């Protein structure tokens, strides 16, 4: 795991950082209507301990519902609930009627929640993409128009996202690329007629600032996987944002324009 600490100096300056006390939300994937029924009637949700995300703790749990749900609710976040307790239990104790399940002895986080609440408006995923867990804040959850609005990021990435949205460029944020045992994070991807554009913002990290925790992927690896790579330096977006956007437009045109 790569670690770089060369941007510690930026710590104190970014007003976009959420406050320490801002309520945190963990968006989890709900791919089984029975699990939603359990959340609704028995007030708990389960995550396998072995596959839990780096951040499992939060004040609220929200659910991204997959294609397993009907057309009214699928591919969107519709519900959330305050978290009450976390307990570690074996699957056979959580679901005694499935005592012979192959993972009956596996440990799960049983996250006890308060009654589900409906969001003011559903948060759809505009493009069908693989979604796992998204750590975010309650403010973002209540104000998001689509999934990509949920990602926490530093000011530079937030401004780029706002600019792309304002110009109608359908980018996807925080797309993961798995290569053998490593998962790499691309800050933005844009799907074009003749290729895929990966935008990597330098000088910062996936999620939030200061301390980098993810491995750096090389251009070679991305290019080999069929991506066109564009690196943006922090000062490009903060000092010369129009130049950066023009550059993005140019690459999109070189790749045949946006996918309809």
């Amino acid at each position, binding site marked *: *795991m790569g*670690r770089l*600490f060369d941007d*510690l100096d930026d*710590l104190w300056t970014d007003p976009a*950082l*959420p406050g*320490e*006390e*801002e309520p*945190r939300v963990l968006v989890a994937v709900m791919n089984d209507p029975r699990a939603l029924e359990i959340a609704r009637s028995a007030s708990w949700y389960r995550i396998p*301990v072995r596959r839990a995300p*780096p*951040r*499992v*703790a939060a*004040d609220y749990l929200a659910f991204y519902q997959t294609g397993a749900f009907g057309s009214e609710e699928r591919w969107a976040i519709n519900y959330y609930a*305050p*978290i*009450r*307790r*976390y*307990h*570690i*239990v074996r699957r056979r104790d959580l679901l005694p009627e499935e005592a012979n399940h192959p993972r009956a002895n596996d*440990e799960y*986080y049983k996250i006890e929640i308060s009654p589900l609440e409906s969001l003011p408006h559903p948060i759809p995923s505009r493009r069908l993409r693989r979604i796992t867990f998204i*750590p975010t*804040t309650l403010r973002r959850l209540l104000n998001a128009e689509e999934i990509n609005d949920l990602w*926490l990021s530093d000011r530079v990435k937030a401004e780029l996202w706002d600019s792309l949205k304002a110009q109608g460029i359908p980018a996807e944020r925080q797309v993961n690329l798995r290569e053998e045992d490593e998962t790499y994070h691309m800050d933005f991807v844009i799907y074009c007629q003749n290729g895929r554009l990966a935008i990597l913002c330098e000088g910062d990290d996936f*999620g*939030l*600032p*200061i*301390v980098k*925790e993810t491995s750096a992927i090389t251009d070679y690896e991305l290019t080999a996987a069929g991506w066109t790579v564009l690196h943006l330096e922090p000062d490009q977006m903060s000092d010369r944002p129009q130049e950066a956007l023009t550059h993005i437009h140019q690459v999109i045109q070189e790749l045949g324009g946006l996918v309809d």
Partner: protein
Amino acid sequence: MRFGFAVQVLGRPGLKSHDSRRWQNEPHLSVSLAYLRDILGYLRRQNIRMYRLSAELAPYVTHPDMPRFHGQIDECTVELNSVGQMARGDGLRLSFHAPMTAVLNTPDETTAAKTAAELNALARLLDGLKQGPEAVIVLHIGGVYGDRHAACHHFVERYHALPPATRRRLALEHDDNRFSVGDIAWIHDQTGIPLVYDHLHHRCYNPEKLSTVKALRLCLRSWPDGVRPKVHFSSPSTAMHVIQQRHPITDARMRLLHPPQPTEHADFIHPFEFIAFLRTAREAALPDFDVMLEVRAKDLALLRLRQNLTGFAPALGEDFLDLSQV
């Protein structure tokens, strides 16, 4: 040698140290442990192997008027074990610092009972996490109450009245204006309690005129065989305080400039002061110890100190420290 920091993580915003909800929202140790699990993952990725837990990990667990919170530790046996196993696997040294309200030598019996209950709960948490003897609860002597010698005696009496399971978790730290290294050394002689040397406190309050090496050696020797001692290190703040006020008569805005107190902790560690401290310890051939950095910039100060040591004292890294591991 391991470096650690206290409680709050700044390097990754949103990593809370405990469930800080008020009692009306029913906070719980299980939620704190989920937050702690996330913090431990961060510490693992940063190779940080020492961490001070929040003393509020189990919210309201000893509150005399809220018995519904008293069973939290028993309710979280599995979760404590899980997080503790993670810490042990990473070679992470955990500790507590007793809250400021915990005053063992107080003349007030109610406060003393409350303090004992708090210390017992913290000890039970470390036991629940299945931590070894190096996981301690650091506390101060308390108040002077007009007679420093009597205050020390009172501490010893109350210490002996604590359950053995709590006593074996305690370590005693001197402070910056009431009780010196000499005072805690006297208490160690009466009780055997291990002593935590605090460099800034010693610089601020040293009536016995003990050299750094003498004071440090005295504290390091107080730890049981096989248990690595820990010390506290912080640099004094040199930052100006700027206070915005309105003039009481004219109501004009004005800025007051206040110098810092020498006892105030700086945001980061002064690298040259720290390097000199380590060199002093090394030249005196003192036993190995861990260092808890008491700094306002928390984990960021630790990471910065690593950078500074690599840049300014690479020889220390080669001869004395594994800079990727401290």
